[in-house]
């Protein structure tokens, strides 16, 4: 009986060791080792700086070998940091705060978007949204569980409105309900989908407008560059070099003088978007990455991070405060 138990235990431990051994946890690439940088979403105009930093040799000149990996709905950069599949990644503030609430050791080294590109599109001819209260009576699309739900609920709460005054409708990647006017106000990334949808409606003789939450006091932080605490502690130089090279790449990508080169770099990955559309996507992205020329690219907006944490606490998306401010580690130049 005892020998059977010992055998089972041995088998379980062997299995765990085999599986555990195949997961390279908390990888902290040292100088000269390849670095993986996991983006939040597929490569498009929103990731222009990330692509330019690699393609135009910014990482290479900093002595780093960086692989820029496209993200997607099933990717989570913070999980990959902990599992050692990536050393740097892009995550939105709500992802960072959720991860901190669950004990992940993640730090923010730069904030890419100063203005959250997540906005709502609507047909300008049908109605006008100049204050949050104007949403009353309209069907507003949200992705349940997504950060647009959090933002919309925060907006409604800020205006003292309840969910009964606005009809919330669940949306996904298919825009048919918006085209068919079943959902009047639709969430989009202003600098990518916003351009594409505006074009589609313009082709049908319609004009659109955008509802920007940050204009009504909700500054929910979007894409930021993250790494693990271990990486920051053990290889501060690599973190510094990576962040500087990345932000230099963003600086170059956002410079109108480099537009052609930037479009060429992005188009290598985003083959479905026409150059002319990408040009307009880049123009809007510039306004969101650096809305104020006096604020450097990558600047971490502490007040906005604090507000994001407060919103998540108020909506009970986290149980207790996570002191997100203590996890913000702006590197030199950001």
């Amino acid at each position, binding site marked *: 009986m005892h020998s059977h138990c010992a055998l089972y235990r041995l088998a379980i431990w062997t299995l765990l060791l085999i599986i555990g051994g195949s*997961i390279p*946890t908390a990888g902290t690439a040292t100088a000269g080792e390849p670095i993986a940088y996991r983006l939040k979403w597929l490569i498009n105009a929103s990731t222009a700086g990330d692509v330019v930093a690699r393609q135009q040799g910014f990482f290479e000149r900093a002595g780093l070998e960086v692989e820029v990996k496209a993200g997607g709905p099933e990717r989570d950069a913070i*999980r990959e940091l902990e599992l050692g599949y990536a050393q740097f990644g892009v995550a939105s503030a709500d992802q960072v705060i959720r991860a901190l609430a669950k*004990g992940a050791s993640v730090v923010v080294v730069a904030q890419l978007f100063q203005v959250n590109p997540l906005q709502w599109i609507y047909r300008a001819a049908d109605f006008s949204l100049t204050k949050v209260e104007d949403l009353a009576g309209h069907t507003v699309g949200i992705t*349940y*569980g997504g950060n647009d739900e959090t933002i919309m609920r925060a907006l409604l709460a800020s205006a003292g409105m309840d969910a009964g005054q606005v009809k919330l409708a669940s949306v*996904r990647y298919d825009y*048919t309900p918006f085209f068919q006017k079943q959902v009047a106000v639709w969430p989009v990334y202003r600098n990518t989908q916003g351009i594409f949808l505006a074009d589609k409606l313009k082709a049908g003789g319609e004009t659109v407008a955008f509802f920007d939450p940050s204009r009504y006091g909700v500054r929910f932080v979007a894409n930021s560059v993250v790494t693990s605490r271990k990486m920051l502690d053990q290889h501060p130089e690599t973190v510094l070099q990576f962040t500087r090279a990345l932000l230099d790449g963003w600086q170059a990508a956002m410079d109108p003088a480099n537009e052609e080169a930037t479009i060429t770099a992005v188009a290598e990955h985003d083959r479905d978007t026409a150059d002319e559309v990408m040009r307009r996507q880049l123009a809007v992205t510039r306004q969101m990455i650096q809305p104020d020329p006096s604020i450097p690219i990558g600047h971490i907006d502490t007040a906005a991070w604090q507000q994001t944490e407060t919103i998540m606490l108020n909506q009970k998306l986290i149980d207790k405060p996570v002191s997100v401010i203590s996890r913000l580690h702006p590197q030199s130049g950001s």
Partner: protein
Amino acid sequence: MLHRRIYQFLIVYGLGIGLLFGIKMTLGLSDYVIPGPAGVWHTAKAEFVRYIGDVLDTFFVAVVGQVLSILMALTVGVVGRRATWFGSFIKVAAYNVQAYPIVAIAPILFILLGDGFLTRLVIAAMICYFPLLLSIIGIMGEPVSDIEHFYRVTGRLRWQLEVKIRAFENLNKLTTVVSGSATLAMAGTIVAEFIAANAGIGYSIRIALYQSDLSKILVALFIIGITLSFYQGILELIGAGVKRAWAAG
């Protein structure tokens, strides 16, 4: 039969979740990557009732989809069993259509049917229909020579009798196929909810994924698994009962 299904599931689930906790402990991962036992327990207490409602909602759609697909597969399988041009056409069409991934067809369904009950039902039925059809065509297309021969030479073999003989002789296979299709119908409905609907456990899993909440997914998987095990056990009991009644008759 029923209790065996359930305790087998409990063993598989226990092993799976134990392995996850083992990896978490061995590698020192945070609750964000793999939740701890306490986290899963708290989530289970908080979400169990809501998730049971969601699973039952999904289960209802899956069962309706499965019944529809069984009826369709039986009809087409009986027609397609013949070695005629039409029979061969049905077989080729079934093989070809099932090669298309449902996620490629789903957008067309959303545009035509919108995202709701009907889309879930159609996707569930489609996912379990084609494997069912192929199995039923296989069973119905294979003559039971020693029995059919007697009726054939005496001129009494009508198509109804032929179908009855083949169904009876392959009742075990049919029961297994129908029972297995329950898993496919449930999986199909969950996939449909994940990509299209606003209800059901697939929809809840999608929200949990957005919130990076693996505990909720583990709880959902438990309820889905236990519900399916129960249902499959019932189907097997019904299959055994039908066989007994048929044999006695």
